[in-house]
């Protein structure tokens, strides 16, 4: 079945550094990917998405890279701030017609001052 998974469960960075969170997926037919941020006691918050016809997409301080050849995507956060501390999930839908999402187990990002 489909699966998505993050490479590292925890990541610690210093304030101002760039952060990179990686994710692998198994379904080569996956055509849409989403990154979510979840703070303690809150629901997942949409950060950025990317479709399979793109290799890169940029938002405010965030960039998502998609490598379909090796079925890998990454979330890059520029100039990481303490407010970025949270659990980050990558997610992908089951198929192009069904919206249920498969989530990785998450990476806990901790930003040190």
């Amino acid at each position, binding site marked *: 079945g489909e699966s998505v998974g993050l490479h590292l469960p925890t990541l610690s960075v210093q304030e101002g550094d760039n952060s990179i969170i990686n994710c692998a997926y198994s379904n080569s037919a996956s*055509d*849409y990917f*989403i990154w*979510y941020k979840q703070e303690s*006691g*809150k*629901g*997942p*918050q*949409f950060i950025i*998405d990317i*479709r399979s016809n793109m290799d890169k997409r940029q938002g405010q301080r965030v960039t998502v890279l998609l490598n379909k050849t090796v079925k890998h995507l990454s979330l890059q956060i520029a100039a990481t701030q303490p407010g970025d501390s949270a659990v980050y*999930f990558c*997610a992908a*839908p*089951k*198929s*192009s*017609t*069904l*919206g*249920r*999402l*498969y*989530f*990785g*187990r*998450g990476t806990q990002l901790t930003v040190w001052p």
Partner: protein
Amino acid sequence: GAGVSQSPSNKVTEKGKDVELRCDPISGHTALYWYRQSLGQGLEFLIYFQGNSAPDKSGLPSDRFSAERTGGSVSTLTIQRTQQEDSAVYLCASSSQGSSNQPQHFGDGTRLSIL
């Protein structure tokens, strides 16, 4: 409000009792999803509603779990005869379409604790 609203935010109940969890999706969103998140885990899909189509119930863990969506808007997730393993955060999400290429927006969940 503009976001997905869930109630109650916390629920503590005794084993064997029934519970109802409510979700108000974003206005105009036709697709609604329920997920469950156990401590330190990713999200586990439960059920999905899209418009007037039959719901996708394939993620419900047992027949003690059921959900309905009335009038294409508000949804209620019901757990009968609760067990301790049902303790988790139950998250609701909605999206503007049922197709996969629209982001799902989540509420803050109901934290359910079974004593």
